[in-house]
């Protein structure tokens, strides 16, 4: 380790899982059960809540037939979830899930965005708790919809029984399908989002802190390499922007796909 460096930041190089731990912003909660509820992560989540609610309420305070610019932006965001996800994936009756899908999309997107917004620089979704909550909502929703629409038994049968496969393969397929619907779907949903945000933050830390370490190093020849490292950090930030938008879209799209399998009769 580079313990000889006076910089606090550089002392954290290389970054590890502990880089994602934050202390309570309210003094006196350290080490208690409620500490994680009052960290920077939680604060950013509440900011997401506030920004989304205020933006949409203000944008749709006085809706008009011919939309204003802000109203048009809000409608376009909802339109992506409604037309490009809900209606294209689920079909005509998917429109009633559009509010959920749109909320999911904007919530994940805004939470992800904190990862590259200066001063915030960390996405709440890089803490598994938030992806788990979102995957949990989707899980409960698609099972509830499936049971309500097809009946518990039919839905269970449609979910695990691969019609068309030879009978002797079914003993292999049924456990796989069952495992898939009950555990894999929500788990992959949560872990995919979490891992992407986690890895993205880690990469940015590596390049940024690595640059600091190189710049502080005793060898003069290494100092210019620090700028290369920081340049990479900028490139990676732009890459992160792409990834975080894509992950928000993928999460929403997969949710729609699972809802579709609950709504449709055939497997």
């Amino acid at each position, binding site marked *: 380790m580079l313990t000889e460096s006076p910089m606090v930041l550089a002392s954290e190089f290389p970054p590890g899982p502990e880089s994602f731990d*934050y202390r309570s912003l309210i003094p006196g909660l350290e080490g208690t059960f409620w500490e994680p509820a009052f960290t920077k992560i939680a604060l950013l989540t509440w900011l997401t809540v506030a920004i*989304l609610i205020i933006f949409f*309420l203000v944008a749709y305070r006085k809706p008009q037939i011919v939309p204003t610019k802000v109203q048009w932006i809000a*409608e376009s965001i*909802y339109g992506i979830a409604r037309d490009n996800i809900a209606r294209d994936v689920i079909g005509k009756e998917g429109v009633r899930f559009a509010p959920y899908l749109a*909320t999911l999309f904007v919530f994940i997107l805004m939470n992800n965005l904190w990862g590259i917004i200066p001063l915030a620089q960390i996405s709440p979704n890089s803490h598994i708790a938030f992806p*788990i909550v979102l995957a949990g909502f989707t899980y409960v929703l698609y099972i509830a919809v499936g049971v309500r629409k097809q009946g518990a038994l039919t839905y269970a049968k449609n979910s695990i029984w691969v019609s068309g496969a030879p009978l002797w393969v079914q003993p292999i397929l049924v456990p796989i399908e069952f495992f898939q619907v009950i555990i894999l779907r929500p788990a992959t949903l949560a872990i995919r989002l979490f891992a992407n945000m986690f890895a993205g933050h880690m990469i940015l830390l590596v390049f940024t802190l690595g640059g600091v370490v190189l710049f502080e190093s005793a060898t003069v020849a290494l100092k210019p390499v620090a700028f290369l490292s920081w340049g990479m950090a900028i490139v990676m930030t732009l890459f992160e922007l792409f990834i975080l938008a894509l992950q928000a879209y993928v999460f929403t799209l997969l949710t729609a796909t699972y809802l579709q399998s609950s709504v449709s009769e055939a497997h």
Partner: protein
Amino acid sequence: MYTAAEEGSGGAQLLLPPLAEIIVGLIAFGVVLFVLAKFVFPRMEHMFQARVDAIEGGIARAEAAQAEANQLLEQYRAQLAEARTEAARIRDEARADAENIRQDVLAKAREESDRIIASGTSQLAAQRESIVRGLRAEVGTLAVDLAGRIVGESLADEARSRGTVDRFITELGAGTGTGRR
């Protein structure tokens, strides 16, 4: 940031979320979902529907206006054609009237001229008759007077004298009938 005391626990810790954070996530997402799904997105759906209605209504209104315009056009065309035939009829009538009037005037003028001619002729005839009658009476006496004065007292035979006079008058009448030379 701080380096956690339980650093040694490693990666598995990452997938075990603190319950408090899950509670934060539940409330946060729940609040956003409640507000947006209850107050914003239904209004957007409503607005989309209103927009569709407005567009479809606009098309329907345009079609109605078009149909009305077409109907008016037809009406005007019909009226125009009617007016044309009416004008032609009036012109024909006027022409016929003018012809009638001309015929009337001509007939009246002819009648008048005939009447004038006829009355002139009859007047002439009457005058001629009365003149002839007067002359006839006068010629007798004049001739007798004249003959008496010329012959004098020698007209003894009255019967002969009457015969002579009658012959004279007859000759006279024939003379006037054939014209005097």
